[in-house]
């Protein structure tokens, strides 16, 4: 730490502001977590109290473990999320590169075309999607989900990545070209590493709706073998009675993997710091 450049007063103020906001951000999460360890009565009797010997209960977690194969669901969710993210980042960054780097007639229009998808809730296309998956025999496979999420994630990815790619110094790409690198190599070896923070951001954005989505797993892959975690947790939400213990436990557990994914991706943010052209 450079003492000369850090001002203790402003540092304290910064920490103060961040701590306050962190508390605001975490308080409801805290409420969820402590309540996932309590009996139903205790949840509603004193939602804010810590679980004690009286109210402590793992009933929610037990229910979750008993009902359905949660490790399988978990694995399915992981495969779908990671698979979709991989394709989104790959295809998205390729398209973003084309749009940001090359000037060709129709560039703008193509950009707009690739953004159309975020303007209509994809849900309304469900029947057509489902019919297509039936026709291709992909129903009840994880591929159907991966494809849908990939398509769903692409617009945002292209949008964000092309903006960041525009900021990569032309000199660097030019240096690559003069060095005889092909456009593909320039993309893969120069541009992609330099927009790593943006890639991580895109990954994080897409990861959450994919992980939490209920609708497409329900429609496209509701089979026991392909159920995702979110779909699996829905069992506890009934018509009239919701097993909040189980819901809280299942969903608390579901936070962990995404959190880990998030942390992995946010590492990339930090690594990206070495970027920034030199001179």
């Amino acid at each position, binding site marked *: *730490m450079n003492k000369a450049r850090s001002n203790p007063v*402003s540092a304290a103020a*910064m920490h103060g502001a961040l701590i306050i*906001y*962190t508390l605001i*951000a*975490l308080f*409801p*999460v805290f*409420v*969820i977590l402590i309540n996932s360890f309590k009996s139903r009565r205790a949840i509603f009797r004193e*939602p804010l109290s810590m679980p004690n010997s009286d109210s402590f209960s793992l009933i929610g977690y037990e229910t979750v473990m008993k009902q359905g194969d949660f490790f399988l669901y978990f694995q399915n969710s992981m495969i779908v999320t990671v698979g979709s993210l991989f394709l989104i980042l790959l*295809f998205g960054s390729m*398209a973003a*590169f*084309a749009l940001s780097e*090359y*000037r*060709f*007639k129709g560039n*703008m229009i193509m950009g*707009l075309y*690739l953004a159309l*998808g*975020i*303007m*209509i*809730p*994809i*849900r*309304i296309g*469900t029947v*057509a*999607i489902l019919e*297509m998956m039936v026709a291709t025999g992909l129903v009840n496979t994880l591929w159907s989900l991966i494809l849908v999420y990939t*398509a*769903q994630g*692409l617009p*945002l990815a292209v*949008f964000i990545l092309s903006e960041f790619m*525009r*900021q990569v*110094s032309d000199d660097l790409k030019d240096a690559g*070209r003069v060095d005889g690198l092909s*456009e593909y190599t320039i993309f893969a070896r120069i541009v992609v590493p330099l927009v790593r923070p*943006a890639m*991580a*951001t895109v990954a*994080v*954005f897409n990861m*959450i709706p994919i992980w939490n989505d209920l609708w497409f797993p329900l429609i496209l892959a509701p089979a026991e073998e392909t159920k995702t975690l979110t779909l699996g947790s829905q069992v506890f939400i009934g018509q009239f009675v919701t097993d909040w213990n189980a819901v809280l436990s299942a*969903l608390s557990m579901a*936070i962990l993997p995404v*959190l880990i994914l*998030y*942390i992995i991706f*946010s590492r990339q943010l*930090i690594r*990206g710091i070495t970027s*920034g052209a030199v001179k």
Partner: protein
Amino acid sequence: MACCRIGVLETGFSLLEIVMQASRFRWHIVIFLAPAVIVYTAVMIFPLFNTLRLALYTDVDQVRTFVGLDNFNMLFGDPRWSEQFWNALGNNFKFFFIHMLVQNPIGVALAALLSHPRLRFAALYRSAIFIPTILSFVIVGFAWKLILSPIWGIAPSMLDAVGLKSLFAPWLGKEAYALITLSLISVWQFVGIPMMLIYAALLSIPEEILEAGEIDGITGINAFWKIKLPLILPSIGIISILTFVGNFNAFDLIYAAQGALAGPDFSTDILGTFLYRTFFGFQLQLGDPYMGSAVAGTMFAIILVGVCIYLFGIQTRLRRYQL
């Protein structure tokens, strides 16, 4: 300027000819675009527009019949529909403005704090603040209802503790507050997104430029306004447009917290919930893909206009600085 811009400027050919470029076909552009365009067109655009097409049809005795713009006439001309529509649209704008005014500034401010190069525990704060964004709507709805509930009383008793109990109201249940409350909950949940984006943008500002600023006496908040902010303007543009698109498509949180009828008395109804009710139906109301598509088409038009204003009016004018 890059090589590939060579010779592509002023020309007015078709897409193909342009890509072709005087005897050297720029295959790489096609190859870069192809996977995304194919997957996206097949799995997204085709189903969506196939569905949107239904806006021009209606169901007459189990037979799909072309009716032109009748559905839109009904949507705008028939007060039964138009009132709901305008109500939802108005609410949606409020929803959007609250996000713009609260979520994005907070997100930018947090990112600015977090990107401070010598801040300790930055990763910790960043992850903590991002956690709400990870949560599913079910749990967010549950937690906030529990907290704001007048019965179980986390919020009332906390207000009580600081002597402000009188400020408490059953916010989610009052027409006057429900939308604002939900908007703020949504802000709470999603502030991580502008934060991340801006954070990524701030990180790519070269250290030396900030150092030059420091030498010039431009530090702290001044450095933010005068150096960082102008450099991240394109990213701020992006989060604005993402917020716009996201808000005008929003649905889940309201649905999870207030149900499809977006109570009380439709005071939290936004286009997303309106579309959902219309398209998929709700309770005894049957889904009507035809009217639903008309609503979706209208939403699409609204969002498209917004995005076009951004793309053609703002984005092209934004100066980008290669860092």
